[in-house]
């Protein structure tokens, strides 16, 4: 219907940035989660 079909690319551009975003997201989730022994006042800082 008028759309040029192309096969999906084998590699993804800027894969490193996706790795980094994925890591930082998990890092923030880990730091924000209340942990035993963590100083309470520092959670917002995380």
């Amino acid at each position, binding site marked *: 219907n008028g759309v040029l079909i192309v096969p999906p690319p084998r590699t993804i551009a800027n894969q490193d940035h996706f*790795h*980094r975003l994925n*890591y*930082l997201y*998990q890092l923030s989730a880990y730091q924000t989660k209340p942990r035993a022994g963590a*100083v309470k006042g520092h959670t*917002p*800082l995380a």
Partner: protein
Amino acid sequence: NYQRVNKNSKIALREFINSCKKSTQKCLKLAHENKITDRENLSSYLEKDHPAIYEALPQYDGFVPMYKELWLNYIKELLSITNSIKTLNGSSALLKLSMADYNGALLRVTKSKNKSLRGIQGIVIWDSQKFFILIVKGHLIDEIKCIPKKGTVFQFEIPLSDTDDSALRYSILGDRFKYRSVDRAGRKFKSRRCDDMLYYIQN
């Protein structure tokens, strides 16, 4: 509290670092006055007699999973390191490492113009433009240290497998790393003059 902190996260970070430094100094002073020389006694004494200082002390153990579980797996995934090292391509690894994120990395100072910095090892809790802010496991208490990137060489290792202790070791030339971690992501590193790094060769 999130709104306040998010608005001034830089101020909140500075307050956090200063409060940790202050409580560390008070704590070392108390240890010296009471002639306490080992960790357990000091933490039980503080928990009993000075709970406010004890609360404000940074805990190195809370950051270890950040390095062991998260950062190591991230960097192995980034360099696509499998257990068989043969597949690693050195130069592409360097390019990826120059763009990688070092929050959560375990760095050690190997060379520095400032001799008192040599040998310091800690987990990066914040990678700022001109400093690596490390949390260091101390003999008596854990401390937060701001290590300047200028005139310093850092080293980190990527263990290859849990069984033997083979690891990949890389050095970070602090003088070439004085950019914010977000800016480094899109930056291409070019070869530059190196007369400001003679310390790297001399000692």
